[in-house]
Each structure stands twice: as C-alpha cells, then as structure tokens.
C-alpha cells in the first residue's frame, strides 16, 4: 500500500468526521455516511462501501476513526455480517444483491447470521442435509441448523442447502440469503451446559426463498461456504491480548486473593502461565509473519493451543477455589446472556469445555495441522465420490 493511499484515506476519514461529527450524529447515520464514502470495506469496489484499495488500510481507517471519537461497534454488533457476509457478497454476489444488502448490513439496521452446522453435520459440514427444492422462481427449504449466533435478532441468514442429493457431497449444495422473518423459520434458543443460550437452533419448515436471493450458481454452495469460512478465519485472527490477560490473568488474581502459598498449586499456575505466554508470543509472531505476507506454521496452532489452555486454566482456577469451586453463583436460569458478560471461574470452567469443539474441533484442527501444514497424507476417504444420498449418516 503506497503512502499516497495512506494519505488519501487519512484525508477521507478527516472529511467524513468533519461532515458528520460523531458526537452530533447517530451511529446509524454515521455508518451510512462511512459506507457511502467507501470507508466501510475499503478493499471493496467503489459504490459498494469501498475504494478498491488494499485491505490492510482498513485497520488504519478504523484506528483513525476511533481516535476521532467515531464508533466501530458495528463490526461487533453485526460481526457475522460485516466480517463474513460482506466478504461472501463481495466475492460471489451480483451487484444488485450487493446494493440490496451491504449498506443496511454495515449500519447494523439489518443483522446477519450464519446457517451452516446441522445436528448431523458438525465437523463434516459438507454432509449437511437441509434440502432446498426449486419451485418456479422460488426455492422451498426444509431442515434444521444449529449453533447459530444472533439468529434470534437477525434479519438475514447465510444458508447452505443440499439441492442435488445424488451428486457427491461437495457438489449438489446451493447457497442462499434467507429472510429470517419469513414464514416457516422457527428460531429457538439452544441452552448450553452453563444454563445460558448464546446460540440458537433454526428450523425451516417449507420456507420459500426467491431465486434472486440465491448466491452464485446452483451447485456452487460449497465454494461459497468455503469463502465464508475463510473470512471467518481472517475475522477471528488479529489483535493479540496483553500478557497475563484473560483466563490466565484471572487465575493469577484468584491465586493472589486466595493468599495460598501451596507450592504444588503455584507450580501448576506457573506452568499454565508459561504455556499461555508462549502461545501468546506465538500469536504475535504469526501476526508479524502474516503482515509481512509470510504465513507460517505459527498461525495455525493458535486455535488448538488456546482451546487446550482455556480448558486447563479454568479447571485450575476452579480447583484453586477449593470448596467454593463447587458453587455456581449465577445459578442455572436458562436465559440468553446479556452481551459478553465476564464469567466467574465456575462458569468459565463450563463454558470453555466448548472451546475444543466450536469453530472446528481440536481433532479437526490437528488434522489440518498435520495435513495442510506438515503435508502428511489424509485418511482414506470413503465418502468423497459417493452420491451424497448413499453416504452413511447418523
């Protein structure tokens, strides 16, 4: 990215902020103006929230906006839309579709969710069974999705369906944007072992989707889904928390409060501290390499490492509480959590059990490390070329 580009976006940001003083402008209005000025996704083409510039510039824009007092909250409030949906639309949608969806997505007037996982298709997303059948210029969808965040507030859902059961599993899928307020869409909270529901189950019962809400070609659904997941990776990567923050920081606090001088517990804590810090520095190295355009193995180990560490650290912290570790102060109320509440040790212990499952199980991550990073051969595949309808399921 050349200096002139830096200068240009800096100038555009300054103009935007001048024209729409954050203090005196509603967030929605400001984000709308940001979109119209091509500062939403700066690498998108002009007219679609971007200026066709280098993706790396967006970080610079966001920092400058924040310094000027403008909110970038929308990126979190509509995470799945702005981080993933936009990328999918940019890569696979028609201009008409982009015009319809990108702006209200960025202003958070329309929240987005992702509808991939199914009860029968977890690690094996490509095994999904939700059917879409063509009916004139509409599609009729039946099936069930799970682990859907924000579905209960979302207006639009990124939906992958099976349209040709007789094609091999990776073919025969088609991708749609579904109106979550349409008839036959039933969103139910999915309660976790913590007693909270961060996720939803979504049931589709004869839901009709107009063909113009189809993304890319019929049968191209897997390709589009992969784009979505790649954008997920990009979105999830990024800034590294400071030393001794998060769960390990909490563990150190609990240790300090406990006033314990038990050398065995201390060694366990320091062991976890060291592992966490080594993993943290590895993430920093990974970012440095990625920025320099040299993605190395450092990048691929983070998800796996943190899943293990979060589970071990929170288990340790609960032990540190001794008998208090057997309590559950919040109780099990079966509610949706208020935002991203800070968990007490016991709830954190329960919540982190999912870290080695959500967003790719640790077993899948180990396969990826072994096969993609180390180049080890894959398992013999029994399902690759079979018609999906003949692949054993259950």
């Amino acid at each position, binding site marked *: 990215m050349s200096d002139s580009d830096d200068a240009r976006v800096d100038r555009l940001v300054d103009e935007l902020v001048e024209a729409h003083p954050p203090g005196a402008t509603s967030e929605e209005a400001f984000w709308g103006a940001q979109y119209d000025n091509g500062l939403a996704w700066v690498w998108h083409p002009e007219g679609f929230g971007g200026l066709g510039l280098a993706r790396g510039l967006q970080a610079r824009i966001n920092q400058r906006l924040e310094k000027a007092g403008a909110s970038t909250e929308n990126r979190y409030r509509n995470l799945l839309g702005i981080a993933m949906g936009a990328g999918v639309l940019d890569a696979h949608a028609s201009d008409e579709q982009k015009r319809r969806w990108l702006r209200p997505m960025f202003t958070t007037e329309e929240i987005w969710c992702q509808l991939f*996982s199914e*009860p029968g*298709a*977890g*690690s*094996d997303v490509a*095994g999904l069974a939700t059917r879409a059948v063509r009916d004139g210029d509409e599609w009729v969808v039946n099936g069930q999705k*799970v*682990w859907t965040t924000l579905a209960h507030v979302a207006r639009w859902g990124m939906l992958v369906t099976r349209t040709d059961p007789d094609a091999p599993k990776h073919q025969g899928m088609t991708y749609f944007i579904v109106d979550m307020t349409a008839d036959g869409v039933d969103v139910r909270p*999915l*309660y*976790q*072992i913590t*007693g909270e529901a961060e996720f939803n189950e979504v049931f589709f019962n004869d839901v009709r989707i107009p063909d113009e809400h189809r993304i890319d070609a019929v049968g191209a659904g897997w390709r589009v889904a992969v784009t979505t997941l790649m954008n997920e990776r990009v979105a999830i990567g990024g800034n590294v928390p400071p030393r001794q923050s998060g769960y390990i920081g909490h563990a150190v606090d609990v240790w300090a409060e*406990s006033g*314990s001088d*038990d050398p*065995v*517990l201390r060694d366990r804590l320091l062991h976890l501290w060291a592992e966490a810090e080594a993993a943290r520095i590895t993430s920093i190295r990974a970012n440095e390499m990625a920025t320099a355009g040299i993605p190395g193995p450092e990048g691929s180990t983070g998800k796996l490492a943190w899943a293990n560490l979060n*589970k071990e650290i929170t*288990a340790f912290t*609960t*032990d540190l*509480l*001794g*008998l*208090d*570790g*057997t*309590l*559950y*102060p*919040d*109780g*099990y109320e*079966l509610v949706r959590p208020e935002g991203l509440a800070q968990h007490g040790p*016991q709830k954190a*212990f*329960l919540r982190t*059990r*999912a870290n*080695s*499952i*959500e967003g790719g*199980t*640790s*077993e899948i991550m*180990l396969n990826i490390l072994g096969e993609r990073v180390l180049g080890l051969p894959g*398992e013999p*595949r*029994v*399902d690759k070329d*079979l018609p999906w309808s003949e*692949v*054993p*399921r*259950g």
Partner: protein
Amino acid sequence: MADSPTVSYAPTEEQDLIRTTARRFLEERLPIPTVRELMMSEEGFDAKVWKDMAGMGWMGLAVAEEHGGSGFGPVELGVLLEEMGRAVTPGPFFGSAVIATTAIQEAATDTQRADLLPPLSSGETIATLAIFEDPRRWSVESPGTKAVRSGDEWVIDGAKRAVIAGTEADLVLVTASTDAGVSLFAVPAHADGVEVSPEPVLDPTRRQARVGFDSVRVGDGARLGGPDAAAALRRTLALAVTALASEQVGGAQRCLDMSVEYAKSRHQFGRPIGSFQAIKHRCAQMLMKVEHARSAAYHAARVTDDPDELAVAAPLAGSVASEAYVWVAGENIQVHGGIGFTWEHDAHLYLKRAKTSSLLFGDPSYQRHLLGQALGI
C-alpha cells in the same frame, strides 16, 4: 514398604444382587428425565422416592442390624453408590446415609448410636456432617467454630460451608473446638440459632448449604463420644472418600459407555467416528482410567478394617478416582462434540458431579499429600 494385603475383588452373589436391584430401582424411579426435574426443583429430591429407598434398606445398608440396618459393609455400600453414581442420583443419600451415618458410627458412644442410628437407618431422619469452614482447608483439626461449656450445656458459635445435605437435614453433626480439642455435636436443624442457607451449586443434583451457629445451646449428651473426636473424624473422612470413589467409578463408567455408544452410531465423513483413531484411542484411554479408578476404589472398600492400609488406600482411591472421573466426564463431552455441550444432553450432569466430587474432601493433590504421609514419603 510392606506389600498390600491380599484381598479378593470379585463380587459376591449378594453384591451382584444389590447391584441389579439398585440399577432396576434407579432406572424405574429415578431415570435421567426425573433427575433433571428434581435438579431444577426447589427441594432437589423426591420425599416419596426417599421413603422407598429406605424401604429397600439402603439408608441402613452398612449399619449394624441392632441399629436397624442390614449389617453389610463398605463393599456393599460401594456397589450401591457405584449404581447411584451411574444414575447421578439426586438427594441427601450421600450426605446422610454415608457421611453423617459413618460419623455417628465412628464417633458416638454405644448409647448415642442406639439412639441416633435407627431413625437414620429407617430414613425418617436426615442428618448431615458440618465440618469445613475455610474453602481450601480439609483438615478436621481445630475448626474456627467454638463450643464453650456453660453449666451443663454447650454453647456453639461459628459457621460451616459445603454442608452436603444441609438443606435437607433434620439433624446437624457439627465439629467445634473445645479446650479438649475438636468435638462433634449433634444439633437439631431447627434449634434456636441454627441458620441453614442453601448455596447455588455447580452440581444441582447434590445440594449444599452454609450453616451458621449463633450461640446454639445443646445438652451435654449432644456431644458425640469423648472430648477429642479428631481420630474418629479423620477415619470418617477416609471412609467418606472411599465411598465417594465408588460413586465416581459408577459415573465415570457411564460416561465411557455414553462415548462408546455415540462413537459407534455417529457418522461423519461417511464413517462412524469411533473408527477414527482420535476417538478410538480416546475411548481406550477412558477405559484404562476407569479401570484404574475401579481398582483403587474396590481396594479401599475392602481394607477399611485395616487402619494402616486404609490410610494408604483411601487417599489413593480419592486421588485416582477424582482425576479419572473429571477427565473422563470432560472427554465424554468432547467425543459428543456440540451436542455434548448442550443443556439437553446428559453429559454435563456427569461433568458437574465429577468436578464437585473432586473437591468435596480435598482435591487430588491434597489426597496425594495424605497418601504421602501414610507412606512416609
């Protein structure tokens, strides 16, 4: 180092009968859906079921016949608890029929036993042992709770935590420091100055309370046994840890069974997930840990008459079974993937029971500390 005493681990026909009867009863009367209702209910257990358990003679299983029990021992109690662990049975059984009953058997005088044990054996009375105060101190010595003599009465002041079955108990056995050492007092839960506050618990199938004592006055007869009950209390905890280990084994075995069942039926990539070594080897390691825990638990239950050996066997069982159950219950969720993390799936009941059990009488490293003391290491 003397070798361990030779004992037989094979179950007797009587023990097999206890197991099958218990399993049938629990499957009929306390199937998981019922357990889930109770765990979300105010009381946490079903008085009717409790009465019927009593009818089966469970509360007095290890109580002498002269005291209304069936005169079995720790091995038979272990078999029953293994089944209860398998069924994550809710209610005050462990707190009353195991811990409190054992405390009375170990600490009380013959007269007191004859007086207190029959209503416990029959299930009419629910009792609890209130012993812990500091969340990381599991020793019975010199509790902060004090008992002071005034006339022919004792006045008890203090507060106890992690009182298992405290919410259900009619009778509270409480440890308190006296000039003579640590004594054990039997206090009616409704006595003036006794305040029982239920705690929100990680494992809602096993309730806990904090119990406060504000100048609670009891007669001299309320002191169980002699002025220094430390030895009896240590033995009580060793027996409780031994009994708990069998319950942990039952729960861990159930987790293994769930995982194996799921690994056979769940297909991904066109194969049962159990055909992948990542899952297959995990299940095999679960099997190994469960069998090791079973060995330690069975051994402890069989050597309770040998104080030196129990001093080794109880913390051995406590540390091994606790670590095995917590690990297996966690891996059971992992083998199940997303569904295992949902409230509707049963896996979490076992994880919560496992984690709680591993802390109730001292975490595994505390148990190892006791083991080291017994071994002179």
